[in-house]
């Protein structure tokens, strides 16, 4: 079902006109309310009057995660705090979180986008949906929750961490839909299989996202659970989940262009890429009130197509992600930067800052092992001391990245030193 046919099936000309009108307004609002952007535009010698439509988009400055961090926590907000009704945050690269805010209207916009995603997957008021993303500062849980309520579905707010309870409720309540990371859904499928319960579920559809996955993984989920699985994409800086999602044809993710302008740029030259060419995805928000952003660099690599989809939607489609232009990892749906590990280790005197992250997927659950070299001057010959040290490091790393980490002490100088950019990550997960 198409939730908002007027907006999802406009002609390309209508989309451009709507985007142009909204961009002009947005630039004016931002220029007058956000000092960071006003200064940046002044430095570049541009004024709001220079932006007359989306053809002028490339005149606007880029925004990066670093800009958000430098203006931590609320520096880029464009409305007074009294208009902010919600805050979310995601882990930053060096300890400080990336903080985002929403006005009442922003929450409504988010609910609209997520309702479109769910309707596109065939979910409606008759459905019972288990939201098994984390609830809290992470946008996944509450984003899906409010969108599903807006749609009129029955929401079961599971959050994460208790697979047994999730399965019991899936069976007892007859849940027909689920929203979670694709790897977690595979884990749920295996647990159901082992319990011999796979034929007793009423599940029809899954909305999966927050981590990269492949068409093969989608097919595996669909075959194991006898359901249809859909891809949802988003990032908290722009909105949260619901910026884009795929339809039953699975030929790319439709971007809600009435609210976000996507661009694909070459991450080196920052020049725009041709249609179909792989580059870095960049978003400009059009309607966000609390945190409007110009040309936010997502670091996600993809390509874009403007052809009309077989589903009838005219919205631009981004292809499945080809990777990242930075070193961010997504582990159990949590964004992790190697620099976070490094920063945390530097604060522990007993270890050297040389480390290796080993990411794996065991029984469809991501695992993270961090190997750390023992420093001779702090080496104790007592096992209980070394085990205490292991625990101390694991605790510090978990605090830094918000994920349980297995720490392995290794012999000095066994972690590769390299002249240039050291290799710090071995990702054994196979996204086949």
């Amino acid at each position: 079902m198409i939730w908002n046919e007027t907006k999802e099936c406009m002609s390309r000309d209508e989309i451009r006109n709507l985007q142009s009108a909204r961009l002009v307004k947005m630039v004016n609002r931002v220029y007058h309310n956000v000092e960071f952007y006003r200064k940046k535009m002044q430095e570049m010698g541009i004024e709001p009057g220079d932006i007359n439509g989306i053809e002028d988009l490339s005149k606007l400055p880029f925004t990066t995660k670093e800009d958000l961090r430098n203006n931590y926590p609320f520096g880029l907000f464009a409305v007074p705090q009294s208009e902010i009704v919600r805050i979310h945050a995601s882990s930053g690269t060096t300890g400080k979180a990336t903080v985002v805010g929403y006005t009442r209207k922003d929450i409504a916009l988010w609910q609209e986008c997520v309702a479109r995603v769910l309707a596109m997957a065939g979910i409606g008021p008759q459905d019972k949906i288990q939201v098994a993303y984390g609830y809290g500062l992470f946008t996944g849980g509450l984003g899906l929750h409010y969108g599903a309520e807006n749609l009129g579905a029955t929401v079961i707010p599971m959050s994460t961490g208790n697979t047994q309870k999730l399965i019991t409720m899936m069976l007892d309540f007859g849940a027909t839909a689920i929203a979670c990371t694709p790897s977690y859904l595979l884990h749920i499928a295996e647990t159901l299989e082992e319990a011999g319960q796979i034929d007793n579920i009423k599940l029809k559809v899954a909305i999966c996202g927050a981590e990269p996955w492949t068409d093969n993984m989608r097919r595996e989920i669909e075959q194991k659970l006898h359901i249809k699985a859909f891809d949802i994409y988003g990032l908290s800086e722009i909105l949260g989940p619901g910026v884009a999602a795929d339809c039953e044809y699975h030929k790319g993710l439709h971007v809600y262009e009435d609210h976000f302008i996507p661009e694909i740029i070459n991450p080196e030259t920052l020049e725009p890429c041709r249609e179909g060419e792989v580059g870095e995805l960049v978003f400009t928000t059009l309607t966000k009130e609390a945190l409007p952003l110009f040309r936010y660099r997502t670091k996600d690599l993809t390509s874009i197509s403007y052809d009309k989809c077989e589903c009838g939607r005219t919205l631009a489609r981004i292809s499945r992600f080809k990777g990242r232009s930075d070193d961010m990892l997504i582990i159990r749906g949590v964004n992790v930067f190697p620099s976070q590990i490094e920063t945390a280790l530097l604060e522990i005197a007993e270890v050297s800052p040389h480390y290796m992250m080993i990411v794996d997927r065991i029984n469809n659950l991501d695992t993270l092992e961090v190997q750390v070299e023992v420093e001779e001057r702090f080496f104790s010959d007592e096992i209980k001391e070394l085990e205490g040290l292991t625990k101390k490091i694991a605790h510090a790393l978990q605090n830094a990245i918000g994920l349980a980490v297995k720490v392995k002490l290794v012999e000095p100088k066994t972690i590769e030193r390299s002249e240039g950019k050291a290799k710090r990550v071995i990702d054994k997960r196979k996204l086949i």
Partner: protein
Amino acid sequence: MIKQLSVFVQNEIGSLAGVTTVLKDNMINLRAIASFDTPEFAILRMVVDQPEKAKTLLNENGFAVKMSEAVAVELEDKPGELDRMLQTIAAAKLGINYIYSIVVRSGKIPLMVINTENLEKTAVVLEQNGFIVAEQEDVIA
């Protein structure tokens, strides 16, 4: 008191041999060896005839090594001797961290190597109770 070396090794195939190869190549003689393992790593404790030299060489080969002291006690080879020694230490309310033995001593009786929370006191208590506490020279010979 005697000197012992503790080496950090990963719990992997060949890791102990990595240590002994360094010793062999430099003609260092092992008097005693004991390994204490966890699932992830092990600590190899050794008594050697040239501890300073061994430490330097192992460091050069990338090992984390700690040289420390331990109490070495002569124990006669008859039932109940180890028990008598342990009772003495327990009676002095001293906790033992670990214990291992040196059997190879040309013509002399075996030694027990003990690490406790207070080495000095352990040595004194044992001597007061008639045990012979060995020194480094006793190990080399």
